[in-house]
């Protein structure tokens, strides 16, 4: 037990160190390179009106915050869904929840933009949440008929395709001026996020994270299966509802601001569990948040810099790193019978 505890501490420290390193690297990397001293000066002093100041303060820093918050939220959302379906390859992207949110958001965006109104954060999150819940509703209906977990994931992928197809139709018929923006977003990107959005996402994800963390006790019980969880005193109905709402809010918030981001929700919880060698939610929920933040910062760094000045969509990068992990899990995971 003591050994486990020191392992947790070491793993947390490792994640924090990685996070710090990636934050510094992300601030530094880009078309305008800055020295450490300059960055420190920009961070500590009030505005001096210089371009460097603008780049760091209004472009890079909010983008970093967004990557940290959204990456963390997405991983935790994945962990919650995996708990809910008792399935290690469940996640907001493969179950079509992100795509549902994407569809709703793009419809709202297009209809508002065509009337000349820019959609506010609240409207976007609201739309994303509705879209996410719609996909979730379908998945829940299907999960009552389909007992094999792999089939459920296949159904989720199909729902994702349907939603993406409708989104593509909508984008095709949208007015030209909106398309560029919409197209970038619908591929998944952390670009174009400013402080006001960061404040909103911090509030939403902060609350959802806190609630998730305080669910760690029933989540731990639920990992033993529904029957035992109920016998231990978990109110199953309320608990399942809470899990659905929280995971949907988290992935909806991510989709509203950054579009659909693939595989983070599966890959990060798996990596984190392997690193910590436990699935105890009280450890894994905060660890997933940190891990997701690290993973997304890293992927965003690559998205921004690999083919600079062209930016790759974040989803492509997370897919490159995340999908192999998912394949590995499907092929080698213990308890495969469950899939």
């Amino acid at each position, binding site marked *: 037990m003591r050994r486990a505890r020191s392992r947790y501490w070491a793993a947390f420290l490792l994640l924090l160190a990685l996070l710090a390193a990636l934050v510094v690297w992300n601030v530094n990397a880009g078309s305008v390179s800055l020295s450490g001293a300059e960055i420190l000066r920009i961070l500590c002093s009030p505005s001096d009106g210089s371009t460097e100041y603008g780049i760091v303060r209004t472009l890079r820093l909010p983008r970093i915050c967004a990557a940290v918050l959204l990456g963390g939220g997405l991983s935790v959302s994945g962990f919650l869904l995996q708990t809910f379906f008792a399935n290690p390859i469940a996640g907001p992207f493969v179950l079509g929840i992100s795509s549902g949110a994407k569809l709703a958001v793009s419809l709202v965006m297009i209809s508002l933009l065509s009337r000349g109104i820019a959609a506010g954060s609240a409207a976007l999150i609201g739309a994303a949440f509705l879209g996410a819940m719609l996909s979730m509703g379908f998945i829940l209906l299907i999960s009552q008929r389909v007992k094999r977990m792999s089939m459920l994931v296949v159904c989720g992928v199909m729902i994702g395709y349907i939603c993406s197809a409708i989104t593509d139709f909508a984008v095709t018929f949208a007015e030209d001026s909106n398309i560029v923006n919409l197209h970038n977003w619908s591929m998944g990107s952390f670009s174009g996020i400013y402080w006001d959005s960061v404040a909103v996402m911090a509030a939403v994800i902060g609350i959802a994270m806190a609630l998730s963390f305080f669910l760690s006790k029933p989540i731990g019980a639920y990992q033993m299966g529904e029957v035992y969880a109920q016998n*231990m005193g978990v109110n199953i109905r309320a608990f399942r509802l809470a899990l659905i709402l929280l995971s949907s809010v988290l992935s909806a918030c991510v989709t509203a601001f950054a579009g659909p981001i693939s595989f983070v929700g599966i890959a990060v919880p798996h990596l984190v569990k392997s690193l910590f060698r436990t699935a105890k939610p009280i450890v894994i929920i905060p660890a997933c948040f940190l891990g997701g933040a690290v993973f997304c910062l890293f992927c965003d760094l690559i998205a921004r810099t690999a083919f600079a000045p062209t930016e790759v969509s974040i989803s492509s990068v997370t897919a490159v790193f995340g999908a192999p992990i998912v394949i590995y899990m499907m092929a080698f995971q213990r308890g495969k019978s469950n899939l």
Partner: protein
Amino acid sequence: MRDYLSAENLAVGYGGQILIQDICLRLRRGEIMTLIGPNGSGKSTILRSVIRQIAPLRGTVYLDGRPMDRMTALDVARRLSVLMTDRVHPELMTCRDVAATGRYPYTGKLGLLTPADWEKVDEALALVHGEDLAERDFAQISDGQRQRILLARALCQEPEVIVLDEPTSFLDIRYKLELLSILKDMVRRRGLAVLMSLHELDLAQKISDCVACVHNHAVERCGPPEEIFTAKYILELYDAGRGSYNPDFGCLELEPPAGAPQVFVIGGGGSGIPVYRRLQRQGIPFAAGVLHENDLDYPVARALAAEVIAEPPFSPIGEDRFRLAAERMASCGKVLCPLSAFGPMNEKNRLLRELAEQAGKLI
């Protein structure tokens, strides 16, 4: 003493459709009640309704004198724990972690265990002889070991009553005995009440204070094992037309081969049993004699032989039984005599053996 767990006129089933009704259960502390009955009779459904996994369609279950549907999940959890047949696949959990989940109803908001909680976990692990398993990964131990760890989990919950659904299935005889011994021990020492379903009639007969038979969509009979385990009723309960059931030993015998006896077996004192079984396996009808009704061979012979020539207990074999046996022997082609111990009581069997030898039928 009052009932700790009881149900009156309970009706249970799935999707509004009643599967079993008129269920009356009364279980006091320090007692073991066992549900027996054929496959698909609904033992598990009853247990699942008692633990509130499915809602009863009619009637109420009372726990500790209170209707269970009005108790909070936590109130129930502190009094009743379960060991069900559902497979658990916890990820990356040691056996100690799994057992520790039983402390859930006693921990705070975050579910952190105090040193006192861990002590209770280790105590429970020791009770099921699972100390060596404590640090092993739960996913990598055998079914029998898992069952013991889950029992430790149930005990960690410090219940007054524990509900088990076929806890001995998949266990080899050693673990079957061990698991039931642990239960019996907990019942005696802590006044635990146990409600379980069992497939093994012999074990049910030996361990239960009360047996409830689920059959024909109802709890058909309920009572002490002496009343339930009769040769006739058990066959009726399982709709078993073939074979027979011996309540004294709790064992089942296959049906005897059909036809007139071809072999005569002179047995006694247990020597005949393996011979009877072999003949039954080979499908050869046989007659057995002359046996005392209190002989070890007698019940098996009754179950397997086409004809048994028997003498009442403790009296020497008389002339008429002897003559009957000799007659029957004459009509059989072969005679087997596994019996080697002769005394005043079965002196006539020696004569039978000599007769067979003279006739050249003895093998």
